[in-house]
């Protein structure tokens, strides 16, 4: 799936994650993450985001994620929603 335009999904409420995706020009996957649990789960959150992008065949994207303690299934849903919105 190709990122055609900036798009976002999620909220800044507790247990959620706010994902914004931006197109980039062949620069691969870049993730900028803020999280209330960065020390404990920062690498896991990035891994989930990366895996979800892989499942959606996204190869080039800049992701800004602001996490408020989201579970993996929420992170995956928000990433997928943002990607689908960006490709419309």
């Amino acid at each position, binding site marked *: 799936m190709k990122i055609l335009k900036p798009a976002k*999904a*999620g*909220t800044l*409420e*507790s*247990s*959620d994650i706010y994902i914004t995706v931006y197109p980039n020009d062949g620069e691969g996957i870049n993730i900028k993450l803020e999280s209330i649990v960065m020390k404990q789960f920062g690498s896991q959150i990035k891994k989930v985001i990366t895996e979800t992008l892989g499942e959606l065949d996204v190869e080039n994207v800049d992701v800004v994620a602001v996490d408020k303690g*989201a*579970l*993996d*299934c*929420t992170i*995956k*849903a*928000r990433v*997928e*929603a943002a990607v*689908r*919105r960006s490709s419309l």
Partner: protein
Amino acid sequence: MNKLRRTMLFIPGDNPGMIQNADVFGADSVIIDLEDAVGATEKDSSRLLVRNALMNLDLGIVETVVRINGMDTEEGVEDINALLLAKPDGIMVPKATEEYIKIVHEIIKETDIILFPIIEGAYSLETVTDIIRASDRIKGVLFGAEDFTADMGIKRTKEGSEIFYARNRIATVCKAFGVDAIDTPFTDTNDEKGLEKDTLVGKSLGMTGKAAINPRQIEIINGVYSPTKEEIDEAMKIINAAEKAAEEGKGVISLDGKMIDAPIISRAEKVVEIAKQADLI
């Protein structure tokens, strides 16, 4: 006997915090709402959120039902297709008609998903028998009084005399078909006495449970639809007397000088079954 559904708690389908805690509120069922609780711009995102949550979270013994968008919208069919993967226990169909239920039944028939139509218009109310007959997956019917009174062009009141007929009809038809009759939610979440009174009215008309729109409403509704200790003790005495009479080969059963007949035993068995499901005995 049907699964116990004293309370069915509405949870917004765009709220991951509430969805992941769906099993802690004490409701017998939760209705994760993709319809009215979700704004038009968040339908896609909420559908993915609910799908993923149901596929990945262990929500314990609480029954999970998802209210989809109307079958007169594109969102409705997309919701069902997402739920075929997520496999909730049930799907709630708003603004139900016989035609919509047949369509939903056709899509879910290869799964174990059960159905709950919502009666929220005059046509739905007068065809509720046809709606229930449209699918053997229907296990309960929810009455939606807000939309119903809007459809009728009548004023909705706390006292609720304007919905007497609708409640009565739904409860009676549901009883006839052996499915649950779930009463409309009480919308003033700060009025606990009003909630209890409204719940008692529904129960007196034959409703078997009630929808809740706030976790604070659950305890009161569960209380109304659960048997009291005295009712449970009396039911146990009746069942014990009936069992003893059967062992002794007696055709006539008496307890404390009163004759006990089949309907009384049947009612006692229901009380005990509800008490067991509610962990009261």
